[in-house]
């Protein structure tokens, strides 16, 4: 059973960790489109997929957030990745299955998964 008391333990542990945390890197932002079009196309499990994967790998300086309609509703779920000093990468028709590879190849190793991006449409 989860109790509110357990939260106190989490708090104590987190506060300890906060004190020793090093200065974090420049930061990568992962933004998921969560308007009606994105949600209907399956953005919710994609968003939770990123959040879970980031937590699981304990990646620092990576944030996951949501935005409204990006304007290409037919390609939803859409995910944009912003990295300091690099061009934005836009992933289209994302699925929870694709998330792990994007995190491993792109977020961790710096190689965007081109075949999942908007750049792959014309090919």
């Amino acid at each position, binding site marked *: 059973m989860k109790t509110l008391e357990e939260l106190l333990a989490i708090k104590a542990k*987190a506060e300890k960790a906060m004190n020793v945390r090093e200065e974090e890197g420049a930061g990568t932002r992962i933004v998921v489109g969560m308007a*009606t079009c994105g949600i209907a196309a399956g953005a919710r499990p994609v968003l*939770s997929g990123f*959040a879970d994967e980031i*937590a699981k790998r*304990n990646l620092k300086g990576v944030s996951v957030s949501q935005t409204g309609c990006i304007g290409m509703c037919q390609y939803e779920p859409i995910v944009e990745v912003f990295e300091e000093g690099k061009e934005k990468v836009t992933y289209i028709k994302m699925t929870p299955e694709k998330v792990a590879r994007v995190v491993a190849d792109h977020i961790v190793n710096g190689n965007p998964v081109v075949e999942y991006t908007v750049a792959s449409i014309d090919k």
Partner: protein
Amino acid sequence: MRELSLNILDVAQNSISAGAKLIEINISEDTCENTMLIEIKDDGCGMNEETLMSVQDPFFTTRTTRKVGMGIPLFKMAAEMTGGSFGIESAVGKGTCVKALFKTDNVDFTPLGDIDSTIVTLVTMNTHIDFAYTLKVDESQFTLSTLQLKEILGDVPLDLPDVVMWIKDYLKEQTQIIRGGAV
């Protein structure tokens, strides 16, 4: 939408855009009457009468990227096609309340789906906003209130992985208890 919980996520996004500080999500099931009432209530900027009339029209939207807004019309349709009902009340400066009543024994009833994911997504992606989620099944109910969680956690954020995990497990356990299943 394949699940009503996705409609709830979508409608709650409107409350977030409206600058709400507190969003209440109430789901109330009556297994004798075979009904489910879903209520999404916020203290955001509200809407004037003209806007209120037009949000149920698919060809009205406040977004600028295209000209249709399907969120409210889809939710309304999901309720009405089960033989239920739908309503929105709003007052400028006070907030908005969206209510949808579903007949759960109708063949056109869309299942609630993964409501816990909707709540976790809302809570952890909008830590500056407070949420109060109540699930009521007949006479049993439970509430997850972020105000209460924040009081305990202090400066520790709701999107910390350990906290997210706690919220997920808590929702799962409490839902199982009130639905009468074993934990």
